[in-house]
């Protein structure tokens, strides 16, 4: 598998070409280079998958007589990145079921979004800079998911963050975009600080940052330490994956170009936190208390964000809160000891949420950047393909069978219920079910207000997007319909079986895995989803949008969380800085320094008066001194 590093090399080359020579390239060449780089990356990842499956089969055949079968994990060493004392960091890539799944999603969905971008960004003067950033992002994200070392993973983690920063603020002349980029980076840094601490803890305790070694040796850690490391890393995950309480950056991130929202802020980067938990599954699954925290935060976030999505007017913000909410589901799966299910939802969500965002982008394209649902309406008649794409994505999100989202979300709810049976904690399940209802309502509202009824503004002449934008949407639509087969029981659950040896092998103490009544639960899920769509349709048909009174205001204001942060953290932080710079630094510390200086100046001035220049006076001083010394010697 020595060719595996090529998966990362292609987008890196694309970045170099567009970054260094971009200004000399024509817009078309820029776009083609970037697309080719990501396409090549996807093709290489597919070859790696084939090679991996083959090697896996060979391993299974040779170990057929042995009872235990471990997942094949191929480490491709690159070079020793740094070494100091006993800390040696080997830059290596890890090829296994999880990293291959992620790499295929990142490069595959990434490729489609690159192609779409050619059309979407066709009139932007800085298109080569755009594609350079986008290729760099793909490289960083692939580094993150394929890293064999936790520090290398962190490098990818930070690089995707900076790409996100650069792309959110791509149109930096807009103050809102500039502020949103900074907010995203700083909020993520809070999580990153926790991530780093978790990493230090693991290194100090285990003496290694090698991921597979950590996975196998977490049992050596004392319980408290393991819990602390798990919670710190999860805190890092809440930043990147926009979970409570660090979710506030993601809705603002919608200031970036819409394909960026689709790629980074829906399909790939924001799932890094979920990926991190799966990557270090043994650490998390062996800390029961951490699992409770993860499931609870996930469920609360899912519910919170879904309710907020009910009353957002910017279509992209609806989708942003929806993403936060769906990421919450993935964490519920992690907390319910079903990491493979969480990854399954990650994959289907990447398909349908990318589709939803690209459709929203197509709406903006059609309506000359109008994205406020109150100013849209009736678009199903004028931009049919876009409407079809959005509706398919919406049905998948709402969990209507047989769309992809249904299968993964249903499995998560099933495992959340099993968690309840095992531990008595039914909160994640209950919140998850409630969220499923709210989800169906808000996405139906978005569809009803955008695509049906009478257009709000008569003068607009919406035009359908060009094929270069519609084709990627069509492919994503197919995946949003058929993607459920990856984990559907009837289809043989290929993805789940692929991940099972790696992520399913963890023994959980005392868990005689209860078998929930799957059929009944599925029935409930379906009923709730349909009820949600129906409710949404009844309430919002003919583009009615009742304000929901005080509760509506609460939701529009995002439960006042952002305002609370501004008042209790941001403003006091700046005030503290100013206080330290003024009264403390100048008023106390510097004043003390200058005070000492003046003191010596004053002493000098005072002692100058002793130097009168009169010899008599000096003689007298000498005499007095001599007398005192002699007197001291005598009286001693």
């Amino acid at each position, binding site marked *: 598998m020595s060719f595996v590093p090529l998966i990362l090399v292609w987008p890196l080359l694309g970045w170099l070409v567009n970054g260094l020579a971009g200004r000399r390239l024509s817009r078309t060449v820029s776009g083609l280079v970037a697309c080719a780089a990501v396409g090549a990356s996807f093709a290489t990842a597919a070859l790696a998958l084939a090679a991996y499956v083959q090697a896996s089969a060979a391993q299974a055949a040779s170990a057929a007589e042995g009872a235990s079968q471990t997942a094949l994990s191929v480490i491709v060493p690159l070079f020793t990145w740094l070494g100091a004392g006993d800390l040696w960091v080997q830059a290596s890539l890890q090829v296994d079921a999880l990293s291959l799944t992620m790499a295929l999603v990142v490069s595959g969905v990434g490729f489609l979004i690159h192609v779409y971008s050619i059309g979407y960004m066709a009139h932007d003067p800085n298109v080569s800079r755009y594609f350079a950033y986008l290729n760099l992002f793909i490289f960083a994200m692939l580094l993150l998911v394929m890293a064999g070392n936790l520090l290398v993973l962190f490098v990818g983690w*930070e690089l995707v963050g900076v790409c996100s920063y650069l792309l959110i603020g791509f149109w930096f002349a807009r103050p809102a975009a500039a502020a949103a980029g900074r907010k995203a980076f700083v909020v993520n840094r809070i999580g990153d600080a926790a991530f780093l601490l978790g990493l230090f803890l693991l290194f100090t305790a285990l003496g290694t940052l090698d991921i597979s070694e950590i996975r196998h040796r977490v049992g050596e850690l004392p319980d408290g330490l393991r819990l602390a490391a798990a919670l710190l890393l999860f805190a890092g995950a809440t930043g990147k994956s926009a979970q409570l309480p660090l979710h506030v950056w993601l809705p603002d991130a919608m200031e970036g170009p819409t394909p960026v929202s689709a790629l980074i802020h829906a399909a790939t980067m924001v799932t890094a936190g979920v990926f991190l938990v799966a990557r270090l599954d043994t650490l998390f699954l062996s800390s029961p208390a951490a699992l409770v925290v993860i499931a609870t935060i996930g469920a609360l976030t899912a519910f919170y964000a879904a309710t907020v999505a009910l009353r957002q007017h910017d279509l992209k913000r609806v989708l942003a809160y929806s993403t936060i909410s769906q990421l919450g589901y993935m964490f519920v799966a992690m907390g319910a000891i079903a990491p493979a299910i969480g990854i399954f939802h990650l994959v289907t969500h990447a398909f349908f949420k990318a589709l939803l965002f690209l459709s929203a982008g197509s709406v903006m394209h059609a309506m000359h950047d109008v994205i406020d649902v109150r100013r849209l309406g009736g678009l199903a008649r004028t931009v049919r393909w876009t409407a079809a794409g959005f509706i398919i994505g919406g049905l998948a999100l709402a969990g209507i069978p047989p769309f992809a989202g249904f299968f993964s979300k249903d499995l998560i709810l099933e495992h959340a219920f099993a968690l309840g049976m095992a531990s008595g904690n039914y909160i994640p399940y209950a919140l998850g079910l409630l969220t499923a209802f709210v989800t169906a309502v808000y996405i139906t509202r978005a569809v009803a207000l955008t695509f049906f009824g009478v257009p709000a503004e008569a003068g607009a002449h919406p035009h359908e997007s060009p094929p270069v934008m519609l084709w990627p949407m069509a492919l994503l639509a197919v995946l949003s319909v058929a993607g459920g087969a990856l984990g559907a029981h009837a289809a043989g659950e290929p993805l789940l079986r692929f991940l099972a040896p790696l992520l399913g092998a963890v023994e959980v103490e005392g868990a005689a895995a209860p078998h929930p009544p799957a059929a009944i639960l599925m029935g409930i899920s379906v009923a709730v989803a349909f009820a949600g769509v129906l409710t949404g349709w009844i309430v919002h048909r003919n583009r009615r949008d009742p304000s929901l009174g005080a509760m509506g205001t609460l939701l529009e204001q995002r439960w006042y969380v952002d305002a609370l942060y501004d008042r209790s953290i941001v403003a006091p932080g700046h005030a503290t800085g100013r206080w330290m710079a*003024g009264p403390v630094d100048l008023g106390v510390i510097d004043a003390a320094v200058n005070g000492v200086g003046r003191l010596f100046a004053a002493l000098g001035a005072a002692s100058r008066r002793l130097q009168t220049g009169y010899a008599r006076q000096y003689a007298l001083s000498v005499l007095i001194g001599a007398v005192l010394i002699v007197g001291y010697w005598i009286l001693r």
Partner: protein
Amino acid sequence: MERYLLTITVFLPLLGGLIILLIPKGRDELMKWVAAAAAGLAFLVSLWLLGPFEMGSAGMQLQERYLWIPGIGINYHLGVDGLSLPLLIMTALLSLLSVVYSWRIEMRLKEYLFLFLLLETGTLGVFVALDFFLFFVFWEITLVPMYLLIGIWGGPRREYAAIKFFLYTLVGSLAMLLAIMLLYFNAEPRTFGILELIQQQPLARVPALAALAFWGFFLSFAIKVPMWPFHTWLPDAHVEAPTAGSVILAAVLLKMGTYGFVRISLPMLPETFKLFAFPIAILALIGIIYGALVAMAQTDLKKLVAYSSVNHMGYVMLGVSAAAAAVGVPEKAHAATIALNGAVFEMIAHGIITGALFLIVGVIYDYRAHTRGVAEFGGLGARLPLYTGVTMMAMLASLGLPGLMGFVAEFLIFVGSFGVFPELTALAVTGVIFSAAMFLWTIQRIFLGPLNPKWAELPDLDRREVISLAPLAALMLAFGVYPRPLLDMINVAMTSLVAVLR
């Protein structure tokens, strides 16, 4: 030839300075070229040192040692190891780039260039001197030219800033002199040799005198670093100093303090340092957080970068004090080694990054906008893409973005210190949040948003500015992506240092 390489490196700039004094007035171009040649040759010779320098072996190399004043045990003794060689090369590089940057200086050019080259000789000498007398001479040599550079070529409050810088540092020097005397008079045989004194540990049996000597060195080094609360001379000096002076001040002079802690305090008075390591680590921690928060409140770009130095030098001191706390604890030796590696790497990283940042401030202040008020800019990104790119890169490097140099340093410091002071390190890690907030807010105010029409005509970087900045940007990236060449050199020296400390 090889035997005299260090002497040649150190005194080439001074030689150039003396030649410049002989050049008749008015031949400005010639003077500049002589200065550039002297600084350039010094840099080349410093690079040449990498040839004979054996990467894998610890201990002093390329030593030169001659009797100087034998009666009282003073030698002319130079040498380099993995700690000093990177600092030496960095100093030579930044001095060269500063000379290139200073090309447009017109006022009293001859004196300016002479003082600048004298300053370079002093700073280079500090990093290679292995005899206290010589060390002290070089240490003091740096003081006078910097005082004059600030006082003559500085901004409106230059005299206040220059005097403050001079007196503050002089107080430190006197304290250091006292400490040196304590060591000298307690050594048997009496010597000013730094290596001999480390070997002898003359104050090991007299803790009270050892403490006195320690605090003597501490005061001197802590003022130079500067550690909180001895930092208030720094913003004043930086704001008033001419750009090249700021660069050398931040990149090189501050390192003399941290270098002193690693070269002298740690190996010479290990037990005493260990005793006081915790309170010193607390000061470092305060510096980290305080520096970032105060920087955030600054409206003057130069002051902002100055306070960010307080933050970064806090990281260095956290690493050094963690290593000190681990003295005599074998199971923490690895953590100490990592922390020291990080601290030394941060010295180089901060030199390159902050050196670049001060050049960057100079670019906008000296020849373009003539203001450093952060709030007065806005939207420059659209007008000056190259300048914006370099600035963003330097600021991202400074806030510790992986892939750039600052991250490697911070990471190693944190990992190492965490093994010794887990709680303090946990608090210190919050510094990465504040410095990110500070730099990104600065970027936003200067480069993003709508272009302030006042600056619609500003030109982007010219060729000489590119020549000054490009090497620094390249190094930030190169050592961020692949730190090994530098880190391996440092690691050998730090591993043997920790081994000496047991």
